[in-house]
């Protein structure tokens, strides 16, 4: 008998024995542990311990914020900003949504949301990109206190007498002579504006990345000829397209 089959058989027997020996509570605990193990990013992957350490740091950072680092709508309490409704509470800051502009957004993809800080009672307006996803407070754990808003990271040190100029970091990688020729033309690299264009193009295309609805509401209006709002926005006026 080959080793693999033998191991599988042993595992099956142990599992059967365990099932008979364990109480229902213990079984539940075991299932939970098994789930945690198999859903862990380390399971069946060659991820290194140092990256896993970073993973835990990122998860801790993520828990303190409202916005997802990447668009992950539909899972783990994340929804698109455009799907927010009055009364929703953001998962990171605990801010309450007091007003949404009925899903209206500008062609540039910005959307405005009015929120209330439960601690101070003050209202403020937040502007999000259309594609942004936010995390809602876990409704199953409503008694838990909302995590405090992440502290603003202090900006980098500013050299005296040179306001606004970022000083060179203390630790840098110094270029070494003869190691690689200096490039003369930086144009070949991807510019931020180009990157943004690519994303906008994607969200305007008929094959969206994450949209539940295939055509954004403003695009529907624009295609149908109701482009006054679009023109208004170009002239600096507010616009409204409704679903």
């Amino acid at each position, binding site marked *: 008998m080959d080793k693999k089959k033998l191991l599988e058989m042993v595992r099956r027997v142990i599992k059967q024995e365990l099932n008979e020996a364990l109480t229902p509570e213990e079984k539940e605990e075991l299932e939970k542990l098994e789930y945690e193990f198999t859903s862990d*990013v380390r399971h069946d992957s060659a991820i*290194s311990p140092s*990256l896993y350490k*970073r993973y835990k740091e990122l998860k801790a950072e993520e828990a303190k914020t409202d916005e997802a680092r990447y668009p992950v709508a539909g899972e783990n309490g994340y929804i698109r900003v455009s799907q927010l409704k009055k009364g929703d509470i953001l998962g990171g800051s605990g801010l309450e949504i007091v007003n949404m502009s009925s899903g209206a957004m500008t062609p540039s993809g910005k959307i405005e949301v009015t929120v209330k800080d439960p601690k101070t009672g003050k209202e403020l307006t937040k502007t999000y990109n259309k594609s942004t996803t936010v995390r809602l407070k876990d409704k199953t754990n409503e008694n838990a206190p909302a995590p405090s808003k992440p502290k603003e990271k202090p900006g980098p040190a500013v050299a005296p007498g040179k306001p606004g100029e970022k000083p060179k*970091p203390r630790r840098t990688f110094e*270029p070494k002579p003869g190691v*690689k020729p*200096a490039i003369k033309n930086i144009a070949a*690299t991807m510019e931020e504006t180009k990157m943004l264009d690519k994303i906008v193009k994607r969200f305007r295309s008929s094959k969206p*990345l994450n949209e539940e609805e295939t055509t954004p509401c403003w695009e529907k209006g624009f295609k149908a000829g109701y482009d006054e709002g679009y023109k208004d926005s170009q002239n600096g006026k507010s616009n409204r397209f409704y679903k």
Partner: protein
Amino acid sequence: MTRLVEVEYDKIFSTKTMASLKGKSGESLRQMLGDKNLMQTMSRSQALLDEIISAEEGYRDELEMVAAQMVTDAYPIIDYANIKIDAKIVNMSDIRLPKPQSQNDPTLPDFGKDDPEKLKAKRRIINGITQGASIRGAFGFMLFKEYLDEINPELVVKYNEILKLAFGVYDDENAIAMLLSMIAQNQNAPGGESEMEYDEENEQFVIKAKAICFPMLVHEIVKGLYEIVGTQGFGMDAKKNKAIIGAVDKLSNEPNDLRFGKFFYDAISEIYNESNINDARVRELFFAEVYKLDENDFISFVENAVNDELTSAQLSWATGTMKDIEKDLKKDDTGLEDLDE
């Protein structure tokens, strides 16, 4: 005039270290390929690659952007050191086959007191670490599983499998022999390429990476990052640097760099992992400090780290260096100069 000859790992390390490296490689082979033989691995890799390329069709723009962003998140040193990333998913025909380098090296510089053999050995190990870091880093996409699941829930499983197959073969001596033979005949088909350049005008390093699919692109970006870190192992003499690169940075060295380099990387990054420091930027900056050690100290440090036999002096140096780096980073982050007190 003499020519710099190549340097192999078994000439650099002791028999004991080589035995340990080969043992780790054997374990890695089992972990990465399971019970698949070489032919099964190659055929499954090709089928998987076709499936991945097809699944990524239409998402390349996002995946390029996401690859750059993910590596920046996983390696915050990129942001701190203001490194620019230019990442592209391309067709296989767009990946250049590296030209075989000329063996002629007519103008050997005067190495003075430096021992060229030791300099080459150091460069070879650094190249190994670069490859090793990029193998380990390629699996970094697992950190962002939720996002990738949104595109296609099967992608992450396929990415994981293709990377294990693609890099697992480098732990198989038969596969290495075959790959070396393909390289000699210029028949190898790389899945990506990366290079780092220094933009003097903007005073920043730029990583240029191309690959045929997303996980390979992540791998190439991380390789570019570690190539930048690797430059810190050079001195300030351009002629010596060029001669060392000419002698060591060869395609034919890559299979064994990929095979053993991941264990050099693991050994050094483990020193960071076990420290009480929780600032991922320290990791790459610590590698840079290790690379700045002189050749003898460097080789001894890496060898002892691989064998888990760092001396107390080496451990104390490593701990002190990481703490100094962390302190400097805190000063940069907070703008406070009096953190030394």
